[in-house]
């Protein structure tokens, strides 16, 4: 019988098996790691048209989140404040600051500041801030320590499994209603137990079926 293949061909199936196994494992890893919102979305910190610092306002000045994001308790969206809200203070504070030039311009022209959105959910996902705040989920649970950020960056993946991890076991993320905007409150350290909170009339029972969020 004539020889068709050279001797090294004997090793080819072995190489193929090894390369196939490693390649397959690498493919799984690649999708798992680089395709995850943990990689693609977390850390997103776009430059904003105004160098507004949450660290200064929410952290050092200890302003309440709801002063600016005032619809958060009543509406699905936590409002981005209009320029007028900024000017409530900045009419009299840091009036000449160069950093605030864009704010003043916006105030005079009536043209809103084009803030760049950081936390963006897909259109097919229904999300309502008010129910979460009403249930006693802290701002910090989803947005991280905003009070320590000069430039806001996305701290959590906002992926479906991340949402579900809390929807399945919400208790760890719950806090008293009046601590919702307190960034440094830690329910675990405080020994908070939702079931024993007299202010809670019923158990938090978030939806885990499809149409809870995909309506």
């Amino acid at each position: 019988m004539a020889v068709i293949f050279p001797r090294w061909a004997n090793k080819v199936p072995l190489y193929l098996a090894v390369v196939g196994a490693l390649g397959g494992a690498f493919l799984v890893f690649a999708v798992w790691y680089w395709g995850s919102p943990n990689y693609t979305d977390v850390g997103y910190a776009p430059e904003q048209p105004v160098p507004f610092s949450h660290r200064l306002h929410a952290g050092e000045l200890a302003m309440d989140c709801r002063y600016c994001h005032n619809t958060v308790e009543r509406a699905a969206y936590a409002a981005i404040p209009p320029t007028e809200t900024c000017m409530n203070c900045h009419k009299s504070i840091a009036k000449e600051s160069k950093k605030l030039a864009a704010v003043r311009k916006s105030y005079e022209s009536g043209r809103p500041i084009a803030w760049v959105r950081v936390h963006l959910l897909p259109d097919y996902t229904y999300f309502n801030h008010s129910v979460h705040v009403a249930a006693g989920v802290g701002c910090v649970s989803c947005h991280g320590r905003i009070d320590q950020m000069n430039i806001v960056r996305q701290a959590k993946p906002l992926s479906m499994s991340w949402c579900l991890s809390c929807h399945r076991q919400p208790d760890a993320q719950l806090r008293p209603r009046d601590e919702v905007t307190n960034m440094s409150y830690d329910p675990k350290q405080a020994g908070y137990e939702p079931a024993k909170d007299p202010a809670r009339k019923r158990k938090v029972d978030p939806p885990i079926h499809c149409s809870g969020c995909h309506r």
Partner: protein
Amino acid sequence: MADHSDAVTRDAQIQWDDPVDRRVPLTLGIKSFNELTEIVCRPVEWQTPKHWWRVFLFALTGLGILVASTAYLFWEGVGVWGLNNPVSWGWAITNFVFWVGIGHAGTLISAILFLFRQKWRTSINRFAEAMTIFAVMCALLFPTIHVGRVWAIYYTLPIPNQMGMWPQFRSPLLWDVFAVSIYGTVSILFWYVGLIPDLATVRDRAKTRIRKIVYGIFALGWRGSTRHWLHYERAYLLLAALATPLVLSVHSVVSFDFATSQLPGWHTTIFPPYFVAGAIYSGFGMVITLMVIARKLFGLERVMTMRHFDNMAKITLLTGSIVGYAYSVEFFTAWYSANPYESFAFVNRALGPYAWAYWIMVTCNVVVPQVFWLKKARQSLVVLFIVSIFVNIGMWFERFVIVVTLHRDFLPSSWDYYSPTIFDVAAFVGSFGLFFTMFCLFVRFLPMVAISEVKAVLPQANPHAAHGEVSEGGH
């Protein structure tokens, strides 16, 4: 050719009169191992004949219809099909069950008959297994394209994902995904392992370099050493043992799609065995249809003999009768249960708007195959071919009748009549295009009979051969 057909008749005569087993031999007038190799390898090695091109182009046209209609389906959505309330399952599921069922004959022949040491399987197992694989391909097609958002089909697989979402393990539709994909995988492995020695034969006979390389790659360096045979036979036996339960389990799981729902007419415990019998029945129907044609076109009369057809006709008769029994038991149960909804479902089946489909089913599946009680009918290629076509039609209608049970649900205001659209028809016709395209490629490029296995059952391979004349040239 004259003495060849003389030899056929003579051998047949000798064996019919054999006082010991009174059986025709498994092959007719094959005088040596080499002659068998020549017969089987001829279609793989000859100049591609015109009739092959004609059939192939015809099949390709069907495949084109499939591709075009599926492209439009993806673009436009499943609304182009006739599905709607209350018949929310239409031809797609009908075709799925039809094609999966057809596959079962191949696995029965190749695995179960192997474990039962039925030597007659050797002439037809390769052919029937190829049919199984192509049928499973067609079957997998329909659930895949019917999901609407086909790019999300990977949701059916349990892959860890950022959605934290798993398939619904309580759903029989998911069990289908596992059952059919396992079935496809095992069938392909079993088929391929069986092919290796024959691929080596084709490789060794190859005249051109490219043939040597291509067949050489797929022959995996087979040299036919004793060690190779030892490993090969163990692997083959193991795969046969793996494939055997699948013959029963796959179509049982498919039947769960219906049986686990709480719909009168579907929610019955007889469904799994009834589906399995139907699957084997439809599969043998298809094997006979294909084999009558292939054996004629490729001159395999001496390998695929009337004895094979006779055996297959008997299995067809048996499974067809089981199916007929199941039809009548369904009616009996409906009456005996004293459940008015159940009774309505069945009376409506036989006398309602789809009575025409029901009676086509009964005629094709229960009445027509009864001719196989007659030996003359089992020995006539014309009768075999016609009956097998009836079986194919009948078994498609069986699934259709079951699916359109939906047309009269619990709320009379939503009763409606289901009609397919041109795109339903195109997908079904197109699936035959896919099936025959694959089959044409198979018969052109692979040995369609398991050469090495048939050699083992040739009289020459039997050291105690009874007929000196036949075993001349043996070892």
